[in-house]
């Protein structure tokens, strides 16, 4: 399962945050991570983000190639620096820090 969500306002000036969330199907922490990330993106990023959700049960090789060891894992690809956070993303402060929002 890979799902892509891209939201771009017509005259976007703000930097687009590109994220990849690695999950394991509908496992409890993965489901929680999706919900937590959706809430954070909605509140802090508005339309300025692009998120790809990758199911490691379907695409394990892709996750390994990206250096992912455990799921759920969230990587911020841009803007640099590349950051990674592991877990169900329930600690909003840590997620914001990893996204460079704080």
């Amino acid at each position: 399962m890979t799902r892509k969500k891209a939201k771009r306002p017509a005259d976007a000036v703000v930097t687009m945050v590109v994220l990849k969330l690695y999950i394991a199907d509908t496992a409890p922490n993965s489901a929680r991570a999706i919900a937590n990330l959706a809430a954070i993106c909605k509140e802090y990023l508005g339309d300025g983000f692009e998120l790809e959700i990758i199911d490691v049960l379907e695409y394990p090789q892709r996750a390994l190639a990206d250096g992912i060891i455990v799921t759920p894992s969230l990587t911020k690809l841009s803007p640099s620096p590349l950051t990674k956070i592991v877990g169900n993303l329930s600690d909003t402060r840590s997620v914001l820090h990893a996204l460079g929002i704080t």
Partner: protein
Amino acid sequence: MKSRTRTKIRAGRPKRVTRADVPRSFEDNILRLIKGAPECRAIRAGEVDAVLDPVSGKAILMPAAQAEFIEHKARFRSLVDLASDGYWEQDENYRFVLHTGAAIGNERTGDAGILGKALWELSFDNGSEIDWQTHRTQLEWRAIFRDLEFSCVDSAGQLRRISISGEPIFDAETRFTGYRGITREIAAREQTTTAAPGSDGFARATLDALAAQVCVLDTQGSIVSANVAWRAFAATCGGSGPAIAENDNYLAACAGAVGNERVDAVAMAAGIRQVIAGEREMFRYERLCGTPPAARWFMATVTHLHGAGAARAIVAYEDITEIKHAERLHGLERIVARCLATADDTAAAVQAVVNAVCAAQGWDCGRYFRLDSASGVLIGGESWGLPEVAVEQFMAKSGSTVVRADAGLAGRACASGEPLWILSGAQNTRAPTALAHETGMAGTFVFPVRVAGESIGALAFNGRSVREPDERLLQAVRSIGEQLGEFLQRRQAEDGLRRSEELLRRLTELSVDWRWEQDTKFRFTQIVGNGMAGTGDMLGKTLWELPGIVLGDDQWVAHKSEISAQWSFCDFECAVALPDGQFGYYCLSGEPLYDAAGVFSGFHGTGLDITERKRAEIALQKAAAR
């Protein structure tokens, strides 16, 4: 560098267990392999669902995620069961490899006649070669097919119409592995809508629509007809009760019953014979079928059938397991209420409650943990367990348990105010006790004991058969927790009052020389202490009947008037002529007593010997007069 532990075996001493001997949990093994600190932290916090194995290139699910998927699958299967009459799976050659529920074709459910065969190899009345070819093409294209309709005549001679739907299955490498799908019985549904009221078809469809298992017996006790629910139960269970197959003889099956079912079978057979013979119109019998935990309660009703050819009796089995369960819990609540209402001793009452809960739920042992608010720990207290060696050892080993109020299942139940449980057979490495593996009592159920929304303790139960509680059980344990909490608080208040009364009595005894009690006629009924010297035996006499008391008539009249009006009196002084010719002086105080109904029951009070003080006063007065 790894440290090594030497192991020396000495005669008569147990082998010393090294770290290497302790089996590692899955989590420990994963943590050994993973180097990243954030990853390790997330695993320890239970926030990881899967770990990617670079060697195999696959994702390995953590136990919690695996359990969730299993439960998800069970939920899915349950929904499929609700929405359809049967479920099936085929291999890559379209041969049935799994089949549950309603039969496909003429074959009975679970019959080897279905497994290993393709759909077109089964017996259908309406499957032409062209139809099958079309279907095979669908399969080759890996297409989803919906509502393929087939008809056949089953072993009972009934026309069956079946709808089959399926979808292809692919593995992780997108290789085709077969098909899976569902079956639905169309005929039964259509019968109810097409059969005319009063016709045999209508009657049959009505019977089949019943949730209860129903069969019709002839004069010999043979089952001449059974509804769908009966046939389904017979096919899945086998045995006695509603599990006797159509065309079998019910009475013969009853006669052949063994073990625990023997008594029920004999009673049922006797009732059926009476109904068939017309000796009674109806026979009802409550019985348990199967063995725990799958056992279910049924209410069997046998009704006499008039003028219906060979048919003589209808046997209907209604599943009353839920009702019995609710009754049992209601009974438990009543037992607990009675234990607490009649208890003389707090510890015995708590133990009786633990015993009652264990007996009702089939748990092996239980213990009350008291929350000590001062030290913030839960202290193990009253307990009860089955008289078995394993249980007794378990209770002895965990006898004086003291746990932190925020730790363990009992602590968490106290903190959350909600019941918590670990089911039997759950592979939980954080089981509440390390003794669980020794005793087999892996299941635990804990609920808080509460007063006015605050936890004051917890009741913890262990057993081999702790199952997922339903809402009724949770409601019952909440009620029991509150009843016990109120009882313990009441007893605590009563104990406090009793201690306070005792203290007051001791203080009173220090300040007075004697205590007394009188009946409604003002006769002394109890004297505690020395009493009044020179008056002889005071019991049974009023104050004015005592010999030697020196008091003026006016004073007696005033005193009698006071006590007749049930007024309290204080420092009533009187003199008593002593044998040595001198006077003794006493001071009495008293107040009226009333019983629970508010009826006057006498007086009680205290007496003080004031002889020395009075003599000193008299001497002073004489000296002043001189």
